[in-house]
């Protein structure tokens, strides 16, 4: 139609942005050559709100770190030493789960038939799970946590995403590694209890 001053001004915005991208690249290049541009220090600034210009993360090759609170899919925690799950089969997670994708069979004593404080079977239908994190939030024993695995797409539909206990279990050390703050808080809470006992 017609172009004029304000359209040119808009072009200016884009042009400035374009130049800024290269100026930024150059700045990091001058700080230490090609390698310096993609070091964690550089990425921490360039991908933060302080960064200027365009900066692309080449996804499958490069990944942004996930924050600690990120909610992926739930996993069950087991003790590294004893190898036993922390879960006591209290059923809180199955009750609070909004899409009702958690199935638990409570173990019972083989002779007396009395219910035991451990699960015999534990299933989560990951294809129904809506990543709300209620199970981890309300678990009184810190036995279920939200993991950080996100690339779980499969080609099949039947049963591959219905995870059983074996597939859900992760060691406590893994939980400590991906959720350091959360783990520290839990330990701090647990210690005084042990002393009392």
């Amino acid at each position: 139609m017609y172009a004029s001053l304000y359209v040119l001004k808009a072009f200016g915005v884009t042009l400035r942005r374009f130049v800024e991208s290269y100026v930024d690249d150059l700045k990091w290049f001058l700080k230490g050559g090609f390698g310096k541009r993609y070091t964690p220090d550089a990425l921490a600034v360039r991908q933060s709100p302080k960064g200027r210009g365009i900066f692309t993360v080449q996804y499958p090759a490069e990944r942004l770190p996930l924050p600690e609170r990120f909610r992926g899919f739930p996993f069950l925690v087991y003790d590294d030493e004893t190898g036993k799950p922390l879960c006591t089969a209290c059923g809180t997670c199955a009750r609070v789960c909004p899409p009702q994708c958690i199935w638990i069979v409570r173990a019972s004593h083989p002779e007396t038939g009395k219910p035991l404080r451990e699960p015999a079977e534990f299933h989560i239908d990951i294809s129904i799970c809506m990543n709300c994190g209620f199970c981890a939030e309300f678990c009184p024993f810190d036995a279920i946590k939200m993991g950080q695995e996100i690339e779980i797409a499969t080609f099949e539909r039947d049963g591959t995403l219905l995870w059983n206990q074996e597939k859900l279990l992760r060691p406590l050390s893994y939980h400590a590694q991906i959720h350091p703050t959360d783990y520290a808080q839990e330990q701090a809470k647990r210690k005084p209890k042990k002393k009392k006992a």
Partner: protein
Amino acid sequence: MTEVTPEPTNGLMAELQERFPGAAQPAPEPQEGLTIARDRLVEVATYLRDELGYAYLSNITSVDYPEGTNGLPPRFEVVYHLYQPTGGPLVLHVHADREDPAVPSLAPLFPSANFQEREAWDLMGIRFEGHPDLRRILLWEGFDGHPLRKDWHEPYYEEDHKPFSSRFPEGRPMPAEERTLLRRNLRYPPGWSPRDWRPMADTWGYTPHDEVAHQKNPTHPADRVVLNMGPHHPSTHGVLRLLVTLEGETIQKLEPMFGFLHRCHEKIGERNTWLANMPYTDRLDYVCSMSNNLGYAIAVEKLLDVEVPERAEYIRVIMAEFTRFLNHAVSIGFTGNDLGIYFTAMLYALEEREFILDLFEMTAGSRMMCNYMRFGGVAHDMTDEAVELARELAFERLPRFVDKLEAFLTDNELFRARTVDVGVLPPEQAIAYGCTGPLLRASGVPYDVRRAEPYSIYDQFDFDVVVGTNGDAYDRYLVRVGEMRQSLRILQQALNRLPGGPVMAGKKKATLKVPAGEAYGRIEAPKGEMGFYIISDGGPNPYRYHIRAPSFINLGVMGELCRGHLIADVVIILASIDITLGEVDR
């Protein structure tokens, strides 16, 4: 500036009771508002609209009582929420027969009732006598029954309320599709067969258009064209079908048709426990899940009567305002994209959105499905790192972005040529159609729930209600930009004053019982007034859970806005209304 009007006092009730003796009575406890006699509803509503200024029919919903309560027989209830344009809610209840429910329609008086009454007919099966076009709106006509009735069960029906007893302690997994096999999960109305069904037949919306098409030139109806825009059209931002009758390139009639994303959110909500609805609200308007969370939390807190700690209130406001900023940025970006010439604006907006989403992810654990608010607070505290990021964004980065966006679009001739005087909405019409949000304010009506009925701690912040003058697509853009600046103002105040302390009142409870009663919690969501109408019977699940979705009701004015415009303007008008289909279809 909007004045805060006090809640309707007994004076108003007394006045109505005096004027309509026997027809208007206070609703029995624990309900709010008035019970109106069915046959005099139109009379009362006319009086309220014309004499008392209750011109704004915000919300219509219906409740099923298959068993008598409150000493009343089994019945349906239709619930109306009316406002004066300056605030002041008034709740009306109308009872309908359980066997053959029929209520006089308010659509001739309030155009905003049109879509909402169709929704009530579709989902609850209440006939609105005198409604001009009472068809199903969200479901198709091969659907059997009315799903929100308490005696209606879905194909995968397991139990009335969650948690299902099959999950614990003997929880052997049983996928729903094994319980009800595919092909057996379908049910048609009696006497209805998919083979005889003709989607082109008169029930499917072509008839009214044919009438229009034949009006001018009955001998040559071909000079008008009926065009389907969507359901898969890039500018509809989802699956929305627009049925357009054209004369040349000029629109004679336009009708939005939707329901493609319908999942009967309200029925799911009645099955769920109170808390379990929180992550479901994320999925309503998936662009601004924090606002949805806030609306639901506020509605339930009204019944629970809990005090939210101060820090939690501040965090809520911070999150809600970031959401508003994010929504408006994306909305403006996509408007540019729909114009076909400004892909850049959209990418710039999405880049800023990424940072806000990073903040949400850091705080709540998820980028879009935040699930962050709880009754009586928020789920997690904001970490120092998150506060740092929020400050960086609110004080440095986002103001710079708004300036850049304005330099890009505001005075741009090409942008103005496509948006100025397109889709003009006069203020009276905006109110009559129940429009809210930037759509209403661009028409010059200074109505903002944050001012009209302050919730959370919005009364402690300085901000202006941005209004437009012409009510066209360009003014809606300007209002959105203005609101982004006001959001930043609120954010800066909130971040400067962010107090310490707990973020949750009491202990988090997995199962909670909500006292019996009804509540309507509303907030100013980025797209307009978002209302949650909930009824509790004192149990662990909601008895009724209705959402007043701003996109759904704003879409009602779409046909009116497009009339007389060119077909190319439809995308701009749609983008300027700013809808999310997840919320329209629910």
